[in-house]
């Protein structure tokens, strides 16, 4: 998909240009009111830009009405049809596209979001989180060419959110069709997206592969949302083996042998001059490349790109300087191991 839009709405102006490759998943991050939903609405055809163009698989779509675009939108509010049962809501997409197996499709998606028990209910009989899940099932059941998701994981509880995230991951991978997802959560971007776009005040202030944006954010907003250590590799039992061959212990739901990434916050990295031999499973010997202030902390950056945030007091006590060899120590419990978008990770 390639798109370029300009739209003025009152004092706010959206002016963006973006491309999404076939099969690519793009996460859109940005502060409230930065134009994320506006962008999705423009792509879906619910808003018309002042000027712009839009094409998907070479078809020009700007003049096409929403239902001809093959673009599905899970909006920020669930907006389930109040007059239809939950099942009929989910069947809506497949039926509208005259698919014969709409009933099975709908039931399958209801199963996926763990909402089959509500199939016969009316939307007004659902809780907020239940409605959100059904809305997700409805959007997925429509199986559009391009899927747009506006904060798909809000209102979900601590069990449902990871489950739905996992579902989305599976779906987005097997579909092999593009998707754009708005989120406020770096983890969503990390697990689901190949690429991240950061919007601010209607403009794209940063974009790039998820890993790059989340580890080396250049915009202040991305920095606040992310700034993580990511170590790509292959998942193994109890952790990940990095491309350089180093084993990193961690916890997560990814099975062994997958493309994956180990994620941990620089704040979770303890720095020692000698190997401390304590409970932490991961002690990585690194050479310090640089030190810079990071808020009220000091960010140490190793030559292989890993970062550690420590307090100035600690930095002073350790008498650190660039070129020095130190141990970066991280507890396995602080390392998340996530299956990541296969293949695409190698890109940057």
């Amino acid at each position, binding site marked *: 998909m390639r798109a370029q839009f300009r739209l003025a709405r009152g004092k706010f102006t959206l002016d963006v240009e973006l491309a999404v490759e076939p099969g690519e998943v793009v996460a859109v991050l940005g502060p409230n009111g930065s134009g994320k939903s506006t962008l999705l609405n423009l792509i*879906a*055809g*619910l808003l018309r830009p002042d000027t712009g163009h839009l094409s998907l698989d070479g078809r020009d779509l700007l003049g096409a*009405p*929403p*239902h001809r675009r*093959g*673009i*599905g*939108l899970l*909006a920020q509010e669930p*907006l389930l*049809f*109040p*007059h*239809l049962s939950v099942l009929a809501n989910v069947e*809506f*997409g497949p*039926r*509208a*596209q005259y698919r014969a197996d709409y009933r099975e499709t709908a039931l399958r998606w209801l199963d996926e979001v763990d909402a089959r028990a509500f199939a016969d209910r009316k939307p*007004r009989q659902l809780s907020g989180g239940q409605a959100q899940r059904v809305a997700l099932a*409805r*959007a997925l059941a*429509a199986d*559009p060419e391009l899927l*747009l998701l506006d904060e798909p994981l809000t209102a979900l509880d601590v069990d449902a959110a990871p489950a739905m995230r996992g579902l989305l991951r599976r779906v987005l991978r097997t579909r092999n069709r593009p998707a754009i997802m708005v989120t406020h959560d770096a983890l969503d971007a990390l697990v689901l997206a190949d690429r991240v776009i950061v919007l601010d005040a209607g403009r794209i202030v940063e974009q790039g592969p998820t890993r790059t944006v989340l580890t080396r954010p250049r915009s202040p907003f991305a920095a606040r949302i992310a700034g993580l250590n990511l170590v790509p590799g292959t998942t193994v039992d109890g952790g990940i083996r990095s491309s350089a061959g180093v084993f990193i212990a961690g916890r997560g739901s990814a099975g062994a042998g997958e493309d994956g990434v180990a994620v941990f916050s620089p704040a979770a990295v303890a720095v020692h001059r000698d190997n401390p031999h304590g409970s932490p499973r991961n002690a990585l010997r690194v050479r310090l490349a640089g030190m810079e202030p990071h808020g009220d902390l000091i960010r140490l950056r190793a030559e292989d790109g890993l970062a550690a945030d420590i307090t100035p007091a600690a930095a002073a006590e350790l008498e650190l300087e660039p070129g020095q060899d130190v141990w970066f120590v991280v507890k396995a419990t602080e390392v998340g191991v996530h299956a990541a978008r296969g293949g695409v990770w190698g890109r940057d």
Partner: protein
Amino acid sequence: MTLPRLLWVPALLGFAVIVLPVIGLLDRVEWARLPALVTSDAALSALGLSMQTAAMSTLVCLLLGGPLAFVLARSDFRGLRVLRSLVLLPLVLPPVVGGLALLYLLGRNGFLGQLLGVQLPYTTAAVVLAQTFVAMPFLVVSLEGALRTAGERYEAVAATLGAGRWTVLRRVTIPLLLPGIGSGVVLAFARALGEFGATIAFAGSLQGTTRTLPLEIYLQRESDVDAAVALSLLLVVIAIVVIVVARPRAVEGLR
């Protein structure tokens, strides 16, 4: 949300304005003569014709007026406001004049009458047309109001799920609008059922063909006012029954 209690005072007053006169009427009916009157040939044939034509014209109103309401509520072009006002014409035109207008248009010397070459006046079709003419604005206006109140958020959602315009209409807009459509249909049906002036002017008053119940009542009044009143009550009872039976619970909306 409970209602302000004081609201019941004007509500009951309004209800009284409507119901008290009818009760006064009941008082005057000579109940003994009623059965004979109501089962007379003329009354039964008029009643049958009335039901049939009112149902037909309500259907026509729905099929033509429904789309018209949609266009008025959902499109946006120059002159829309004027169009919207023109729809009110039959509402304010005295019905007899409306009937004359139809006669001028579709009669033997009328523009369309000559063009089409069919003899419409004095047929049952003419009755349906007359009723449609007077009843249509009721459907259009009340439906348009409901459409505006409902908004179009769900229609947008349906479109992003790949539903074409017809599917959206059939499976989202119309079901969500049922209460409004119900009101519109009831108003149109009632207006068609009670239609007198346009019918007598355009379709005439031939028993079995064009003499609907209101026309029969009018004629009865020539010879016997009390009989006319009794017949009107029949009309009222029938209409209410039809409306109550035909208005399914679904139409009462999603609460």
